[in-house]
């Protein structure tokens, strides 16, 4: 198949890191903090590379929006087997306010520009938990969408997607081109092996600006304040049922 797949990846604070709120409550501390690829984006890259290995698609193009550092994230995807990367340069104030609406506009423009048959994204990012980019991208392109995918099967020009929904599993069939967002159980991302890491160094990463794609980055959202969740109060151990009853009475619960 001569299809091209576009995979979006986001550089986020590593999920094992303890998040600290900035003293001025304007956001979280990102300086000097370990960043890595969003785990759901890894799953998306893995799925795309798997499709390429099965020879169902021809090329995997990986995209990321943000400052210079996102190129590391793109390199990781290249080391996993993507063919080339696109870095949409967004820096400074714009990168702080970059949200799903702007990213989906960028991805829609790129999908058209690159003539992609399939856009695969992670279902949500672990820093904002928005779960909106995939859906918005599909709407802007007027393409069908298969979100929370736990299984993706290419059947000719149609796509069968098994979705994880509240009630269980829902299977949908989509006409291509389509947008898919990856959920946890879709696959287990591979380790990038050394030979691939070396090869990835030579793969191309194009740098484009949002203005080249005709996208306006102004945000309609303003973050007023960021706070830590309230500290969990320690529990109290009681020795007898009488103690329990008296404590509950004291607390006005009974």
């Amino acid at each position: 198949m001569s299809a091209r797949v576009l995979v979006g990846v986001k550089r986020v604070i590593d999920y094992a890191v303890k998040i600290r709120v900035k003293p001025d409550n304007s956001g979280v501390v990102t300086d000097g903090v370990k960043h890595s690829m969003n785990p759901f984006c890894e799953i998306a890259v893995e799925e795309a590379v798997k499709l390429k290995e099965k020879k169902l698609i021809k090329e995997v193009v990986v995209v990321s929006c943000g400052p210079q550092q996102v190129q590391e994230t793109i390199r990781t995807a290249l080391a996993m087997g993507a063919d080339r990367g696109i870095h949409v340069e967004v820096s400074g104030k714009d990168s702080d306010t970059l949200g799903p609406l702007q990213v989906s506009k960028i991805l829609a423009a790129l999908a058209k520009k690159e003539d992609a048959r399939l856009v695969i994204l992670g279902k949500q990012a672990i820093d904002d938990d928005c779960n909106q980019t995939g859906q918005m991208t599909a709407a802007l392109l007027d393409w069908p969408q298969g979100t929370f995918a736990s299984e993706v099967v290419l059947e000719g020009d149609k796509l069968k997607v098994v979705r994880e929904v509240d009630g269980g599993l829902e299977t949908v069939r989509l006409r291509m081109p389509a947008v898919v967002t990856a959920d946890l159980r879709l696959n287990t991302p591979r380790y990038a092996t050394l030979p691939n890491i070396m090869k990835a160094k030579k793969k191309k990463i194009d740098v484009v600006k949002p203005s080249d794609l005709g996208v306006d980055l102004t945000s309609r959202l303003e973050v007023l304040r960021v706070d830590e969740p309230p500290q969990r109060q320690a529990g109290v151990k009681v020795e007898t049922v009488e103690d329990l009853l008296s404590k509950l009475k004291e607390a006005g619960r009974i």
Partner: protein
Amino acid sequence: MLRESMGLNRLRRLGPPATLWRLFSTCSPSVTVLDRLPSALGTLPPGLEAFRQARGIHRWSDRTNQTGSAELHRLPFSRVSEQDLTFFENLLPGRTITDPDVLMVHNVDWMKSVRGSSELLLRPQTTEEVSKILKYCCERRLAVNPQGGNTGLVGGSVPVFDEIILSTSLMNRILSFDKVSGIITCQAGCVLENLSTYLEEHDFIMPLDLGAKGSCQIGGNVATNAGGLRLLRYGSLRGTVLGLEVVLANGTILNLLTNLRKDNTGYDLKQLFIGSEGTLGVITAVSILCPRKPRAVNVAFLGCSSYRKLLETFQCCRGMLGEILSAFEFLDSACMKLLEKHLKLTNPIAENPFYIVIETAGSNATHDEEKLHSFLAEVMASCLVTDGTVATEDAKVKALWSIRERVTEALTHDGYTYKYDISLPLENIYQLVEDMREHLGNKATNVVGYGHVGDGNLHLNITSHSKDPDLLAAIEPYVYEWTARYRGSISAEHGLGLKKRNYIHFSKPPGAVALMNDIKHMLDPYRILNPYKTLPDHS
């Protein structure tokens, strides 16, 4: 259990003469001895079977095979009496334990290879309580087995007979931490992982790290001079422990706790207690120098086609990574197969005869990654390494480390494990594994080698379907003789404990062992501290 302890008490009330106690305690299933007993006592003691079961857990074959060639006799210590129990209950209310179910856990080692028959577990909370306990036990000639996390691998942490178990589990307070110097002072019962977690909040780490970190206690680590995964970078406990508080056999509290990096005033007594395995004194508090938490940790998992290439990779690593190298571990393909089979872990790279885990730790991510990447490019280009992967994210780093750290766990699922912890010159390390494989042939299920190759330390493990005396006879003393031939150590970091005490002469000259006995006699003349361990029998 209740039936057994009842049998025991009944026998106590029978009060057999001393000579009969000798017969009882050899616990030989030899028919002639047992035949003689009824006639000597007139009638067969009702609880004899129960007694044999209670004592007989140290079956003849167990004892001779696991504990070297010598047959083990219970030394003539006193036995715990009602008065003793009363004393301890007054001293440690609620912390004097005789419940057989609780004791069962503390009587068996982590490997489930040796079992004692202690009936008393004490849980002091302070050094003063430990001092009073030992003073009393010394006067009463009661044997004591100090116990920390009970994760030792040489049977040194559990009683052999009915020694009183002195557990440090409740002595788990951190006493002080100096954020500038990085010196932490804590009680001996602090679990290593808890100390690490505490230190990480303050941007420091413990200088040692081992697979047992979730259970092992720092007092036990110091008493066994534990090595672990970070020794290559931060050195051994002999360098990082700055001070100790030890209670001696007669109850004297020896306060050698200090927060000083340098102190050359007289003989360095703490070095005697580090690695003494609880036989010279009970460690009650430790002060340790901790390194700063590295900002950037990278782990590389590499595959090598031969041991020779592995050694050359190590040399290259030393040269190119230099000061940022913090661990260099290896495992062989037999280990990988066990991990895949029993723990369902996936090999992150292609199959190779040898796997290396390299960790770098430094203060500057960019600097470290650059060094690591040029090292990796070099070893790939020169074909020293056939495949590999790198991780910088915490989750992936942990995943790669678990491949090395969980080999011990995988082995427990493969049957009965015979563990050997050997130090050898680097170039001879794998030869021992290969020679052992050839020597054992089909007798063993698996013969695997892994370990801290950067420190010259091999963990040789052999598995069989179940405990097999023939297999053991083939392994020992062959493994020790082989080690002695290459002037290695028969116990690099696990210590001697119960299982290896009689092999000390393979690595130490007789004059040294004699001097060790003199020191033991001076510090513990009634030999109540952790008897039957560390020093050879008939000393």
